[in-house]
């Protein structure tokens, strides 16, 4: 529990001054220089040496005179004083002593010269300069420790001030008290006494937090952040006690934060800081009845951190959390503040982005892979159309709806043509989104175009006034092509009256003990009654094997994955995205996996009738059949050769002989299929295709 501590008002003032937040201050070495100057003169009588030292200090402080804190201001005043004394004793510089006195009066007329070292002549000069344009005003304060505002400029409540002749408005304030205002006019040779006596109207509470920079709210109203502690030569004993009681070092504490104007009643203090658990402090009525000044024990927030591990099988990734780089992947077990981050991994090609929550005391592990980057190049806006602003609003929010691409917004003010040229040069995106209006058609439709940098484009006719004009675009950009499925190498079917899916073909699994024409009754220890149920278990399985049972006899079958073909014109796919996605996946793929990815890339290119490009990929795709029995049906080299024949046949009659040759090769792979492992055999189709070409 946070209890009030009782300190004297003087101690409170000291702590407050000591720990107040200030602007950046000069190099502390200047204080040593000033001390060396004093020593040179006092101990060695070296006036020139001393002068040089003080001139160094002056040169450093004078330009910053308006922002110096009281300690440095005092040093500047002393430096003027010392230089005036030294120069007054040097005939060559005697005239400069008066300038120092004048500068001092201008900087701080309330500074009193050191009478022990300053000559009577200089003292008279200083007093004369002051009284020529200033009059002295003396103050008493009740209570002390407040702030005196002189003509709107706040400052410490000093016992006296020298003020210019003329009208002045003075206000003395102190938290917990009603301010008092005094107006008067000063004439030459005037002197005046002013007594301030404030009436208490509220309580104050002063506290320190760990860490500094903690957000403070009182009764739901934000009051700002606790200040950073200022380094000070002398730490008040009271502050040490506060730190010790909280088990902290003094330097861990924030600067003092004062809750002023606390009226009668209970109050709720809330403190928040990133990386720390929030804290609530209930302030009872005793703090405000009667009104008084209080200092709380230090409020220490407990750290709230989590651990993050990010890896990627793709090379070259660099991790960024909310814009800050955490270096190259893998990043293992890095301690981060608990909270939500915009996690970005930048790859040489593609990117990954995700809003990530790191819970306190938890480890979050994430495997990332590059996603295609989709850059929206904006809309020049020269053409107007109904619903334009609505559509633009939808487009601005597009990134939040896309799960499979990293969305890059347009650069502010960059025309779309320039953006396109920049992207083509930099090649730092895989996909481009652009927008065209359709001028000569009724219906106010707009054409959204998604394209690769290679020119494979797809158009989306969008009606800006639809409830969700981007629905189709979003759905298709979020649809990953399915190119693998788990397999245990069995063909099963549901037959009436059977206890489970009947094995129709077992391939190599017969050797493992699977019996043809017997139903499978269990898979992965769970009962299965239909082929769909078995498929569901397959899709959910993660190991290397799957146990299936026939008539109570369990057999462990290797769980592999079989490649699938993507459809050529599926209405639910966005083919530029499919192409970009497959290209990225191919970067990290090897062997047969790479070959099947290239096969599917080729099919995606066939969608755009880019048979020449497709052909290049098909020629690179070499299926070795590693890890698969030659008896098992599925996509294979025969499939690649069949599509090679298809592409060649589309390139014109000049390539017909090569196409026939490719179809001939395809016939040499009796277990290659189309679509996937449950598709038709390629060989008879290739034979038919070759015959068609020959005829």
């Amino acid at each position, binding site marked *: 529990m946070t209890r009030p501590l009782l300190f004297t008002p003087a101690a409170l003032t000291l702590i407050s001054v000591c720990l107040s937040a200030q602007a950046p201050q000069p190099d502390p070495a200047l204080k040593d220089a000033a001390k060396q100057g004093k020593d040179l003169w006092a101990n060695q009588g070296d006036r020139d040496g001393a002068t040089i030292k003080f001139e160094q200090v002056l040169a450093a402080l004078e330009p910053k005179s308006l922002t110096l804190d009281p300690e440095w201001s005092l040093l500047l005043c002393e430096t003027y004083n010392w230089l005036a004394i030294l120069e007054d004793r040097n005939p060559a510089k005697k005239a400069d002593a008066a300038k120092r006195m004048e500068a001092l009066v201008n900087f701080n007329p309330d500074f009193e010269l050191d009478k022990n070292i300053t000559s009577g002549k200089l003292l008279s000069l200083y007093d004369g300069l002051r009284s020529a344009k200033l009059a002295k005003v003396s103050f008493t304060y009740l209570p002390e420790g407040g702030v005196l505002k002189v003509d709107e400029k706040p400052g410490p409540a000093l016992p006296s001030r020298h003020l210019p002749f003329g009208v002045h408005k003075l206000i003395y304030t102190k938290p917990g008290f009603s301010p008092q205002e005094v107006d008067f006019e000063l004439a030459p040779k005037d002197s005046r006494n002013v007594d301030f006596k404030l009436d208490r109207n509220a309580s104050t509470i002063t506290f320190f937090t760990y860490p500094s920079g903690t957000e403070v709210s009182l009764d739901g109203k934000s009051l700002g952040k606790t200040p950073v502690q200022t380094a000070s030569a002398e730490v008040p004993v009271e502050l040490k006690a506060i730190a010790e009681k909280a088990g902290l070092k003094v330097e861990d504490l924030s600067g003092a934060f004062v809750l002023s104007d606390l009226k009668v009643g209970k109050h709720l203090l809330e403190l928040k800081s990133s990386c720390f658990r929030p804290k609530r402090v209930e302030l009872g009525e005793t703090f405000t009845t009667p009104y008084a000044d209080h200092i709380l024990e230090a409020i220490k927030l407990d750290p709230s951190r989590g651990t993050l591990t990010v890896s990627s099988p793709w090379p070259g990734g660099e991790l960024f959390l909310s814009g800050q780089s955490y270096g190259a992947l893998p990043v293992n077990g890095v301690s981060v503040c608990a909270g939500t981050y915009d996690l970005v991994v930048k790859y040489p090609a593609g990117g990954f982005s995700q809003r990530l929550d790191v819970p306190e005391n938890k480890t979050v592990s994430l495997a990332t892979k590059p996603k295609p980057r989709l850059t929206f190049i904006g809309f020049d806006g020269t053409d107007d159309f109904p619903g334009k602003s609505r559509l633009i609003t939808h487009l601005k929010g597009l990134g939040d709806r896309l799960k499979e691409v990293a969305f890059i917004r347009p650069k502010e003010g960059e025309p779309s043509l320039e953006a396109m040229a920049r992207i083509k040069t930099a090649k730092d995106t895989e996909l481009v989104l652009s927008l*065209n209006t*359709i001028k000569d058609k*009724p219906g106010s*439709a707009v054409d959204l175009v998604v394209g690769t940098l290679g020119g494979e484009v797809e158009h989306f006719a969008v009606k800006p006034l639809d409830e969700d004009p981007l629905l189709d675009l979003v759905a298709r950009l979020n649809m990953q092509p399915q190119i693998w499925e788990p397999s245990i190498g069995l063909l099963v079917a549901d037959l009436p009256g059977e206890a489970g899916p009947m094995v129709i073909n077992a391939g190599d699994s017969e050797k493992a003990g699977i019996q*043809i024409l017997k139903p499978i009754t269990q898979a992965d220890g769970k009962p299965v009654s239909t*082929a769909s149920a078995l498929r569901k278990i397959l899709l959910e399985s993660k190991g290397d094997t799957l146990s299936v049972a026939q008539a109570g006899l369990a057999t462990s079958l290797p769980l592999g994955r079989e490649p699938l073909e993507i459809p050529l*014109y599926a209405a639910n796919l966005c083919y530029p995205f499919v192409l970009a996605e497959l290209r990225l996946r191919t970067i990290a793929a090897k062997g047969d996996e790479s070959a099947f990815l290239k096969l599917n890339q080729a099919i995606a290119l066939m969608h755009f009738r880019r048979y020449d490009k497709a052909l290049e990929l098909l020629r690179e795709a070499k299926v070795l059949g590693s890890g698969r029995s030659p008896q098992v049906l599925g996509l294979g080299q025969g499939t690649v050769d069949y599509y090679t024949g298809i592409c060649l046949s589309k390139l014109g009659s000049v390539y017909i002989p090569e196409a026939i040759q490719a179809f001939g090769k395809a016939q040499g792979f009796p277990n290659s299929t189309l*679509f996937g492992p*449950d598709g*038709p055999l390629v060989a008879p189709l290739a034979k038919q295709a070759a015959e068609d070409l020959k005829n």
Partner: protein
Amino acid sequence: MTGLLPIPRRHAIALALVSLPACVLLAQDADISEKLYQSGERAFHAHSYPEAFETWNQLLQAAPRSSFAAQALIRMARYHIEVEKKPDSALPFLERLKTEHIKSPIAAEAMLLRGEILAQRAKKPTDMKEAIAEFNRVVDLYTDNPAVAGAHYQLGLAFQGQSNWGRALQSFLEAYRLDPLSTFAPKALLQAAEVLDIRGDLQGCLRLLERLRERSPNTPEAKDAAWRIAVRVKWRMQKTPLKSEGLWPAGKAAKWVNTPTLLTPGPDGDLYIYEDGLDRASVLHKNQSAPVGGLVKGAKAMMVAPNGLPWFLTKQGLVKEDGVPAALAGNAPTGGVLDHWGTVWVGDKKIPALTLIDLDGQSKALPSPTTNALAPLPNGGVAQASDANRDVKFLDANGQPQVWIPYGKGLSGVFRYVLALGSDALGHVAAIVDGGEFEGVVLWGPDGSVLRQATWRQLGISGKFVAIAFDRSGGLILADRSNDLLLRLN
């Protein structure tokens, strides 16, 4: 995407540079044509067809080249096909669309429809030429139009009708490959599976049927695939012997039929039963029997027309819905099959030929031994039993023998007579055989191999069995005319 959007998905857009007045004029025309189109559409939905046609005709006059004119033409064509059920009347609209809007994506739909109408009009395989050309045009001209999958599917059907199985398979698979989620995809996959079976690839057929079941589970084709898998696996892969399940359907008492002599499965799997004692046919749907068609005396063969009504062969001739016999070449018909083209194949036990009678009543003779029983095959041909030749032949759609099975081959003994043949849509053929060492039931696969055989003694049944048919659960139904009952073998 709605049909009203003026640009098709994935279609490249070429924006012509036009002067401002021309652009404004174009916009005004477009405005009028859209209003006229929508006005016609409103009337159409209110079933005020004359008003709709009048409005659309105005549109065709006012803006004949607009995209809405193309929309109107296709709507008018569809009206004739779907509402009036007169597809021929749609042809002028489709041809105009094809001529005047060849660059419009709607022309692809028009050409597909036109091809379908031409295909439906075909009476023989060679008549399909024009339809095939139209489907090929859709494929060649509108590569990425959704109609292309439909065109491939229709090409598959056309090639199937021509018994060009290789091209049919290619076309069906292409229709599926384009977009497995399209409405054509399950239909195409089902047909591709059947073609694979016809070509002898049972495993390939089963793979595709199971793929269909898994990936399009809520389609009618998936239901169709289920029984097709089950029956194929049961007859061709499992070895369980035939046994009698007794009276059929379950719950029906004996003599619920009166002298059943003919059994024929209908297109939806219902069983048509001709009762000689009643001189009429009935259809058994979910175990409920209902009379169908008119009275026909002494029917020797029964077929089911596409409209669900039975046709008969009697000594007097071919009897269709009108009940008037059309004379045949002979007077001893023993079997009749109605094929895909509407041609009736007639077998006669005294005439050494099969008579083929087309839709127009023209007949031609196909040289053949005399026929004792006839059953349809899924390849468009027939299974023919000839006691004179003592063989069963599986003929293709051109009447050419593909499979030849001497009586008794593969059986424990020979037989002399085939009393009845039955077949299913999967190419299985069953026979009631008599005389000699083997009297009972034989079941052959599409390749002529014996899949099941059982004598009456083995089955433990007796009677005068004169008709046999398959059901879709992998059973055989026998008609016993002397005991007035049906039995099921499983």
